């Protein structure tokens, strides 16, 4: 993955194989500081450190999934730069996987592609490193630019949007207008229990103040309210915050909002209420003769074409409840052109940069004749096919390198045996 200039062991033959060995760039004393930094960043030692931390973080992140949702673990371990790991009772700072992967990419490029000796023996190693860089680039593009969610359709239904598994948004719509103001969940979902967030927009004649935000909540009627410990009752209901689910997609966010005319201590309160992720209808706010709809729901993404579910089929192994196959016949309508296709397990539909995967179906307790729905996982990932190309490159590089090494090893062993036979003769 990189090349460096290790000091030779004092009393043993050099252990580093010459094929992928370091480039000698002169003695360490004569090197400038930037050169030393370059040496470090491109060195085997740095590679080993990064790989070791990556190994450790992967292990810890795997164990953490026993008690935490995958979503939380991903954010804490794999999409962070620094974590404070405190499973032993005291915090230990560790680099997050995002930071480690960024540094690994630097090490790969500097050591494994730029600095490494360019000759026939290192050809496979260089190719492999290029493939690894491609893979990391695919991960980066997916992390930065992809969107993921699901589209659930009953037979006969159609849709041109999908919704996120985890992300939330509050939308504010003026009745009679099609334009909609969206407040992304990342701006309020992580608020402290006592924290508030104020939102203003030029098109809004009022400010919105969010508080008491819960990632996972339930709504209970006022008759179950315990004064002093529960949150305030609004329109006969109150929010109760719950522990996050291990399956984070099952969490239902909730919050209290206040609409005010102007900001500051003297601002007039126009309306107050609670928003819950599973409420059937948006909150209705009347102000200056206009009606506004405020809604909290999972983030929705538009698709530039329409998908209609024509038929959903599930097949079970005979005499069992175990699914053998399930697949959906869909009609795709894009710019007046329609096409009928089948989406099944391992056979997704790819179109216009979006991919639709057969994810699940329901209701799980459906009886014969019960209308079924089909759920598609929908992904928009510009780097969708990059891992496949990276896989080709890495496979070629690794096989080339290690087959060459194996061939040399066989020749060496054969030579030894012939020499031994010669000596015996």
């Amino acid at each position, binding site marked *: *993955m990189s090349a*460096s200039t*290790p*000091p*030779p*062991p004092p009393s*043993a*033959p*050099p*252990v*580093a194989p010459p094929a*992928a060995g370091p480039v000698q760039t002169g003695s360490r004393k004569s090197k400038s500081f930037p050169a030393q930094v370059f040496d470090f960043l491109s*060195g*085997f*030692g740095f*590679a*080993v450190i990064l*790989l070791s931390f990556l*190994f450790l973080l*992967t*292990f810890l992140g*795997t164990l953490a*999934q*026993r008690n935490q949702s*995958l979503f939380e*673990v*991903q954010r804490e*371990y*794999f999409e962070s730069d620094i974590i404070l790991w405190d499973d032993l009772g005291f915090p230990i700072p560790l680099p997050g996987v995002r930071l480690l992967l960024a540094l690994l990419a630097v090490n790969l490029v500097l050591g494994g592609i730029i600095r490494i000796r360019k000759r026939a023996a290192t050809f496979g190693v260089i190719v492999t490193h290029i493939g690894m860089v491609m893979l990391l680039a*695919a*991960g980066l593009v*997916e992390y930065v630019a992809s969107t993921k969610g699901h589209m659930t359709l009953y037979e006969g239904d159609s849709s041109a949007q999908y919704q996120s598994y985890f992300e939330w948004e509050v939308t504010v719509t003026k009745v009679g207008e099609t334009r909609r103001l969206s407040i992304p969940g990342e701006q309020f979902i992580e608020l402290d229990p006592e924290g508030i967030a104020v939102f203003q927009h030029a098109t809004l004649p009022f400010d919105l103040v969010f508080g008491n935000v819960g990632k996972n909540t339930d709504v209970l009627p006022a008759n179950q309210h315990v004064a002093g410990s529960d949150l305030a009752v609004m329109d006969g209901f109150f929010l109760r915050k719950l522990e996050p689910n291990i399956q984070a997609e099952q969490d239902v966010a909730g919050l209290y909002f206040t609409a005010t005319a102007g900001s500051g201590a003297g601002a007039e309160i126009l309306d107050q209420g609670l928003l819950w992720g599973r409420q059937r209808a948006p909150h209705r706010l009347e102000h200056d003769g206009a009606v506004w709809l405020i809604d909290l729901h999972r983030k929705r993404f538009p698709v530039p074409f329409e998908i209609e579910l024509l038929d959903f089929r599930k097949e079970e*192994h*005979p*005499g*069992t409840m*175990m*699914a*053998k196959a*399930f697949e959906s016949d869909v009609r795709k309508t894009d710019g007046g052109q329609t096409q009928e296709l089948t989406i099944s*397990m*391992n056979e*997704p539909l790819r179109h216009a940069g979006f991919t639709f*995967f057969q994810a699940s179906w329901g209701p799980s307790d459906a009886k*014969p004749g019960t209308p079924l729905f089909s759920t598609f996982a*929908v*992904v928009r990932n510009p780097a*969708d096919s990059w*891992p*496949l190309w*990276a*896989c080709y490159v*890495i496979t070629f590089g*690794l*096989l080339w390198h*290690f087959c060459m090494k*194996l061939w040399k*090893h066989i020749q060496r*062993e054969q030579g030894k*045996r012939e020499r031994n036979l010669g000596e015996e003769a």
Partner: protein
Amino acid sequence: MTAVVRRMRTRGLWAGLIAAVLLLGAWWSPSALLAESTSPPGTTAQTAMPTWPEGVVEAFRTVPIQQDGRVKPLSTYARYALLEQNGRMTYRTAADVKRTPTEWLLEVLLTPEFAANERTFQVQNDEVLDAIGLAHEGRKKRDRYSFSELFPVRQKLLAKSQEYTQIESKDRTPVEAQVVALANAFFEFDALARFLDPLRAEFPIGDAPELRAIMGGKESVRYSDVVRNIRQVGELWGRLQHERAPDDAELAALDAFVRDLMERGNSPRVLQLLPPEVGTEDEEVWFSIADMLGVGMNTPYPVERTADALAALEGVIDSRGDPMAMTAHAEQFQSILSDLATERGENDTTELEAAYHQGDWFFKAQWLFVLGFLFAGLGWLFPNRTWTGVVMWLTSASGLALVTLGIVQRCIIRSRPPVSTLYETILFITGTAVAAALITEVINRRRIALATSTFLGALGMFLAYRFEMHEAKDTMPNLQAVLDTNFWLSTHVTTVTIGYSAGLFASAMAHVYLIGKMLGGRSGTPVPAVGGNLRWYQQPDMLKSISRMTYGLIAFCLVFSTVGTILGGIWANDSWGRFWGWDPKENGALMICLWAAIILHARMGGFVRDTGIAVMSIVGGLVVGFSWWGVNLLGVGLHSYGFTSGAAFGLKVFYYVELAFLAVVAGHQLIGWLMRRSTGTA
């Protein structure tokens, strides 16, 4: 079955009665068994131990049945039913006669009065008996009990089992889990013991002349006669109900006949034994004996050949004591059912599967590897003897041939690539590790890889045997929908599994290296011979060579693990819509890749040498263990089809042994360093 039941709803009274019987049948076993007045089959009469003619056993061994969504030989069902009940795949009667699974099943089906008194129910801990209130004074803590002994506590057994079933299986205590397993085995035995009851019965015609005419003038008929003529009986009953007065004698006789039929012609549907005489597109689910009244009455399916098969089975029941006749009836029964299954295109691999289980290739391979390992030990005691090497080669290559034969047969039976279940990973990893060791031996010719191949083979086959014993389930289950892709099973799963085997083989070689070093071998320069006879670790360049092999295997592991892991990501991208999701199983595979990369880079960077590579390779073995088994024990993630229970103990033992070994190595290194330091050679 669902199609049949659906059609029944549209028929008349007769159909309704049959439907009621069918529905009752689904619950028959517990309710009938739990009644206070019920007696176990074995308490009414003691019978002599039956003997089963070879032809009868052979015929029943290959009878096709449908179970858990696939067609398999009756012997496969018997194998796992006996294993679940008895904890072993064979059992010895009270008279110390060894019984195969098929013979045991014949005993339960045909001579339940004998089988009920045989102690075939394994109770692993007498706390299970305390829980269900069965006295066990004078018995061993772990002992076997008969159906008749358990019968008096059947109600408590059911109640406790129902109580413990409410607890999630991973949260049950061992005793709770054993109570549930015992209850399952007990009620399955009961269902089997009563399965052939309709075929044992005679149904008197009574004073019903038209019915007698339909039945060929007989005074009483067997179940097969009824099935053959069921449609005419139904039509007669319907006609007489319209034509005759309610108190008509013939109608009353027919009524009595029908009620008798429904009562005694009903039996538990524990075996789906009878292929529908129509194509699979019409009816996918096979029938049980008690289904046939409903099938004959409520569907247009032909039933004549099924009636012939049932008549043959009645012949088997009736001809006890006449081996020739019994064999003839059994062969006829098997032949009819096989033909029916073949016509449906569902009998392609039944005989092969029966032969596969009878061959027991993996068990035989295990002993070949053990024998080879014994000769490896002898080879170390007598290093210059050629014959030890020859025997090692023969045993290891033969063991590998048997493992390969078994895997190939499984592939043909399942129409799948070699690896699609956790059990198959054990077989494939063992096979590829042994093959890799033999190839290494061809290149290296130092007998180290050869000896290691015998050890890995024996260990792998033992693990496969223990896994099958512990799970006590068919090892060829149907696959979940997401796994129904031979392309990805043959690329991703196979590749990543080869990576596992390379990692474990490297770990094994690292053990050899470190043992050699602790015994006094040196990496690089030869140790002077003592008495002119060099031990294996004293041979010139031996340890260096082992270290090179270990390094090569780590590289091999890196190649296959990396390619396999990326292929897995590409598969996940096609199935679940994301390349990488940090799922535990994915992380486990990534950890193997990372660890192998760490070893290679640490070596290239000069941070570790031969001993360091060996130690890191052993840690690599632990990483493979975590990825292969450990992540399954976490019980989270998308790879739920790989979950297993009960492997935790084995994995802990593996970890403790390996860590103890590494501690010994560290201690040895420390002592060596201190001694060198004290003598000034450090």
